């Protein structure tokens, strides 16, 4: 075990969230919950990245009063990446929800196992 676990508690939380979301994605039968799990997984990752960019005692990277020294602002790169990531995850969520609606219309269930049962009955 390395030395920094306690100092990095926010990252630990982030990755625990990631794993919770991942487990939801793997284990939940219900599609809606799977999708929520996906969102939690992504949020965990973004939390990790945002925590990485944070530097104690510095402020948000918006230039005020012409101060442009590195010592004044936090790292702007992670914020940009997370911004991209959030937009990606909302698109994915919308697409998955649309798939869910169609599946429900066809099979009247949200449970993936039952759906595969129907498919088995259809003979594959």
């Amino acid at each position, binding site marked *: 075990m390395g030395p920094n676990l306690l100092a990095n508690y926010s990252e630990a939380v982030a990755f625990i*969230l990631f794993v919770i979301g991942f487990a939801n994605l793997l284990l939940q039968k219900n599609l*809606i919950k799977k999708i929520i799990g996906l969102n939690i997984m992504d949020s965990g990752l973004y939390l990790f990245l945002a925590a990485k960019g*944070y530097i104690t005692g*510095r402020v948000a990277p918006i230039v005020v009063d012409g101060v442009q020294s590195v010592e004044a602002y936090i790292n702007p790169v992670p914020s940009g990446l997370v911004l991209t990531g959030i937009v990606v995850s909302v698109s994915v*969520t919308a697409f998955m*929800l649309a798939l869910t609606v169609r599946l429900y219309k066809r099979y*009247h269930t*949200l449970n993936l196992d039952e759906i595969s049962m*129907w498919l088995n*009955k259809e003979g594959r």
Partner: protein
Amino acid sequence: MIIFMVILMGILMVCAIAVTATKSLLNSVLVFMGFSIVMSIIWILFESPDLAITEAAVGAGVTTVLFLATLKRIKAIDLEENLIIEENDQSEIPSWAVAENNEKVEGGASDEL
């Protein structure tokens, strides 16, 4: 500050586990909305106001609305299904024998969607 952060992180974890544990889908969607709002507060604490605005608008706003719209849509499909079964008792015909697009024809002018 650190204590506040720790508390918020704790709420995040509780929300994440609660989503898994709740039976009702509506509840889990609402809990997820709470999760997003807590997340946006955390981002303010991490000095990323851009993310906080985006998360509040996208995560707590639009995503939740989409989830709720889906749930409502699903409920509507269920209602139609019940109507159909009551009107003409077709339940013994396995629905897999009916091609996808004429599923709802029996219901007459039922409201598809």
